[in-house]
Structure formats: structure tokens, C-alpha cells
């Protein structure tokens, strides 16, 4: 169903607000799958969200620094065959527990309810 200009504008405004809080979750989710360097995190998030969640490198690095300072992620330097060492990021135990609790409280216990799933599929 094609949206009108007005509907499209509303949607884009809502998506922008909605996406603001999403990047951190998707970054941590990507690391939950496996340790990755910054570009790997960016590509995974882009791919899994079908391009709806994106960020420039600077924003990514800022977010990674904040998360590291809070002991949610840590990194190790891995030698690279083409250029300087890569920083490969991993979730810490704290990061895993907080991500798990967040996902349970805010995603799986809400969106995976049968009734809600059915409604979403009907949209």
C-alpha cells in the first residue's frame, strides 16, 4: 500500500525517533552473536535491519567508547594481514547479562506474545 506524502513524512519522523535508541541494542546484539570489529558490527546491523539502522563511523566509535567505559564491552587487538591491528569487540559478562535482561523485558516478553505477533502479522 503506497503512503501519501503526509503519511510518509509521519513515518519518517517516527522512524527517526524510534531508531535513536536502537543502535546500541543492535550493536550489542551483533556482539552477542560473535566478537566483531567496528566495520563488522556496522555491516551486521545494516544487514539484519534491512538498512533501517545505520550510523557513521564516528557515531559508532563514540558509542563503542561509551560502552567500553561502562564495562559492557571490551576489546582485544588482533593482528591484521592488511594494515594496523584491528580492535575486535566482545560483550563482557556484565554486557551479556544487561543485554539479556533488556531483551527479555522489552522485546521477547512483549513482541513475541502470540497475540501481539498475530496483530503484527496482520498489519
Amino acid at each position: 500500500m503506497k503512503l501519501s506524502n503526509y503519511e510518509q513524512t509521519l513515518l519518517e519522523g517516527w522512524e527517526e525517533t524510534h531508531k535513536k535508541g536502537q543502535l546500541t541494542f543492535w550493536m550489542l546484539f551483533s556482539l552477542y552473536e560473535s566478537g566483531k570489529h567496528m566495520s563488522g558490527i556496522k555491516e551486521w546491523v545494516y544487514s539484519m535491519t534491512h538498512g533501517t539502522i545505520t550510523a557513521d563511523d564516528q557515531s559508532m566509535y563514540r558509542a563503542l567508547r561509551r560502552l567500553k567505559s561502562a564495562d559492557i564491552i571490551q576489546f582485544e587487538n588482533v593482528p591484521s594481514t592488511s594494515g594496523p591491528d584491528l580492535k575486535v569487540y566482545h560483550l563482557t559478562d556484565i554486557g551479556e547479562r544487561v543485554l539479556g535482561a533488556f531483551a527479555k523485558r522489552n522485546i521477547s516478553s512483549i513482541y513475541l506474545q502470540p497475540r501481539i505477533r498475530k496483530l503484527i502479522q496482520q498489519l
Partner: protein
Amino acid sequence: MDKTIKTTGRFRRGLEITKSSWRVLRLDKELVLMPLMSGIVGMVAMIMIIVIWIASSAIVFKADGSFTASNGVNIWSGALLFIVYLAVSLIVNVFGAAIIHGAAQRFDGHNPTFRGSLRAAKMRFGSIAAFSLLSSTIGFILRLIEDRVPLAGKIVSWIFHATWSIASMFAVPVIVLGNKAIGPVAATKQSVNIVKKVWGESVVSQLGLGLIQMVYVLGWAASFAALMALLVLANTGMTVTVVLVVIFAIGLLAIGVIFSALSAIAKAAVYYYATTGKAPETFNKQLLQEAMTVKKARKIFA
């Protein structure tokens, strides 16, 4: 106390220790009261000693209002000067011990209190007093030598003074954080061992704090000078100038008090690291977690 200390990364560990000191002070602001009380008690002690000095006629006032030491009482003046050294040393060490105990409590994950920290220092008062006596005796003798010998002798005296200051840097932490009472010589020997282990971290943290303090003092002085220049141009009254000078003095005092506390906390941090082997990053993380609030957490996930 035989914990392995890495020899590499001293600079980074020194910086982590400096960060820890800031965090401890932010978590336990009451520790700032210690150097403040130390200053107040020190001033009261000095005033009392001066009064005693005057009363004992060791000082003679002349008709024109000037004063001089009276003849034939040099020994008495010397004794009073030594008492001043001892009093200042004792007061600084007692309150310093209290801060150090408070900081160590925080590194252990406890919440120190002002009273608890002072109580801990009081429990070791005998050892602190003995160390203060040793320290002030050495300081006094070196001062006497300095006043009486030519330049080369003065330089040697300064070198001894610096050596003693470095060697005894951790004597107060050893006394207040040790499991039992300890004599001043034994405390100094243990202090020397710690200095040998963690000299890099000590230098970086104390030097780092010294540099930061200098920046604050210069910044404060520059702001004051600029404001005074404006006042002079605006031709404001004497009252405003006096008020500003008082504010400036209070600001300098506040900076001195805060950095005095930070220096003692940093000493505690280095001692703690030397004796437990626990990396500064570890107790930095602990401190970070204790200081976390929902408001701060929002910024992490923003």
C-alpha cells in the same frame, strides 16, 4: 605484602590511580573535611604556640612595635620551633591517616564515614605520634644544618630532605592500614620497600595531581587578575576589592584542601595496589559501578 607488580605500564597505571583518586573524592566528599580540619587545627596550634612563645618572653617587643628574640634564650626558641615542627607534623599525619583509611575502605567496596576514618587514625595515634616525632626530628636537624652551613651544605641538606620525604612517603599508610601497631623505623623501612616496588606509579600520580593543581591555581589567579583589572578600570570602591581578595583567598584554600585530599587518596591507592596487587583498573571499575546512576546510564545508551 609480596604481590607481583608489573614493571611495564607504570605510566598508564599511574594515570588510572589518579582517576581513582578523583572518583573516590567524588563518592566520599566528606574526606575533604580532613585537610580542612588539619589546616584549622594546625592554625589553632600555631596560634597557641606563638602565644606561649610571647608569654615566655622569648620574644621581646620594642617601643617602636617591632620584636626580636630576647638574648640568651636561643635554646628555648629552638625548643619551641621544634614543638612547632612536631605539632604540624602530628596534625598533618593524623588527618592524613584518616583520609588514607577512608580511601582504602572505598577501594575495598565499603562506604567510609568521617567519624570512622578519624577513629581508625585515633587507634594508631601512638604509632603516628612516634613517626611524627621521628619525622620532625629529622626535619628539624636538617633545617638547623641548612641555616648554619654554606651553600654546598645546604644542597646536601636538601638532598637528604628529599630522600627522607620519598623514603617515608608510605609510612603513614603502612601505620594506619597495617594489621597491628608498628614503630616509626619499621614503618619507614616498609615504606622504602613499597617505593622501590611502585616508584613509577607514585611519581606519575603525585606529579599528575601536582600539574593539575597548578593549572587550577593559575586559572583561578588569571581569572582574579582579569577581574581586578576590570575593577580598577571601572573605579569601584575598596569594599568590592576586599571582598574579591577574600573570595580569591578562599578559592586558593579550597583548591589546596581538595588537592591535599586527592594526594593522600592517591598515596592510599598506590599503597593499596602495592600491597594487594589489585590493578588500579579493577578498583576503578568498582568505583565506576558504585558511582553509576540511572541518569548517567542514560548517557551511555544514548
